């Protein structure tokens, strides 16, 4: 059980309809638990997640963002996840270069069959963001 004052992060999840969102369903069907810290948003493809949405979430108060897509080679739209990977590489490089906590942004490949991996990953990301603590950037009035 969580202690009363324990920090509960808000983590926005952008999950691809064909893989990761389906894996979330499977995790549910399998009665596997994952933390309620995740606020899932279903997108049609990880390649359709413009970094502006990730930044918007982070600057708007989310403590972390996780993008879930089909494993490389398995994209429903052939190459969306490869493009997502490049976008995320640029986003993470930028955040890292500017010293803005790039480890608050995650991307994971979780196929429709990987319900257990979905639950495990959501636990991992939640634990990791808990360790990082609150995202102060998103709480600043002056940005």
């Amino acid at each position, binding site marked *: 059980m969580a202690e009363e004052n324990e920090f509960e992060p808000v983590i926005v999840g952008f999950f691809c309809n064909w893989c990761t969102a389906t894996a979330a369903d499977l995790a549910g069907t399998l009665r596997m638990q994952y933390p309620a810290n995740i606020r899932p948003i279903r997108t049609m493809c990880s390649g359709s997640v413009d*970094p*502006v949405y990730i930044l*918007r979430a982070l600057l708007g108060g989310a403590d972390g963002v996780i993008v879930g*897509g089909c494993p490389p080679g398995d994209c429903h739209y052939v190459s969306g996840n490869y493009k997502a990977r490049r*976008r*995320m590489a640029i986003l993470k490089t930028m955040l890292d270069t500017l*010293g803005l906590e790039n480890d608050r942004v995650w991307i*994971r490949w979780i196929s429709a069959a990987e319900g257990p991996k979905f639950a495990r990953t959501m636990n991992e990301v939640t634990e990791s963001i808990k360790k990082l603590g609150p995202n102060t950037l998103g709480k600043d009035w002056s940005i």
Partner: protein
Amino acid sequence: MERYATIPIGNQGALGAIRQFLASLLEKKLVDALLVPLELPTGDNVVPTIVSSPEQVQAANPLAPVMPVNAARLVSRITMVSSSPDRLGVVLRPCELRALVELVKLKQASLDKLLLIGIDCHGTYSVADYGKFVGESSSPTEDFLKRVRESKGDPLLRKACQMCEYPVPMCADLTLGLLGANLDKEILLVAGTSEGERVIQELGLEEAKAAERESAVSGLVAERSKKREELLKQTREEVKGRDKMMATLATCINCHNCKTACPLCYCKECFFDSPVFEFEAEKYLGWAKRKGALRMPNDTLLFHLTRLNHMVASCVGCGLCTEACPNDIPVSDIFRLVGYEVQKLFDYVPGRSLEEELPLTTFKEEELPDIGV
């Protein structure tokens, strides 16, 4: 393979020789018009101008160390709706040419019927500094060339220019070669394409060898690269980390001037000018309630970070975003810093080649093993 010819200077000076060369392009109908920087009648600025008469071209001054706009944006403006019906020569600095190549790849400009004339670049001053420089000098262009020859590190040069490691045009049909040329005697004309060679032939210019050019270029590139390391390090110290980043951007008023001046911000309608950013009053009040206060205009950091994400892979480092900022935010320093890392990641040099695909429009199946597992 590059071919070289020389433009003799005689007693008219380097600028006179360049003007004569440009006029001869028009006279011999090798081009129907030129987009070239022209001296304004007031004399204190030089602005890109479409010139079709050989007489008018006598006011051209591509040597003046000032770049009020990145002319790639103008070439895009001219050719975006339809490509040029007549042959248009465009005289561009290396960063303008590189930006143009990026815009062509972004389908925002067409090279049809264009003759790309590049010019070696010793760097530029801010518009204000150039105006002052002209006011204090009786022959500013000659004085500038003298400064280039004599001094190491002109203090008036914009920071972006001091650290620009691409002083030589890439992808040009013809280059007006100043580096390694004896500017008392001649200017080197470098043909980079068969089109460029044809122009040299038509003009009947004498073929030449460019013995000094290579070492002059590599010397300048080495000097600029060293300066780049130094300035990037300085920028890193100034902006890296949450608090420094916020302090750097603290005076941003969200005017979007940097976006307007940027030759590469390519969206026809910017996301940030779209209805997505028109919110109801309750939204603003809600944010203020959650954070305790909300600075207005809001979303300044989001704007800069998103713009970085969207086009930093193509940033040519012309530095005009910094020039455009009313509050002197070093936008270009941030772009150069992030651009350096991002471009390194994809081994991409903006404007290096028309064939190289933009990093965000392509991918490799096996790459970036650290991103996603």
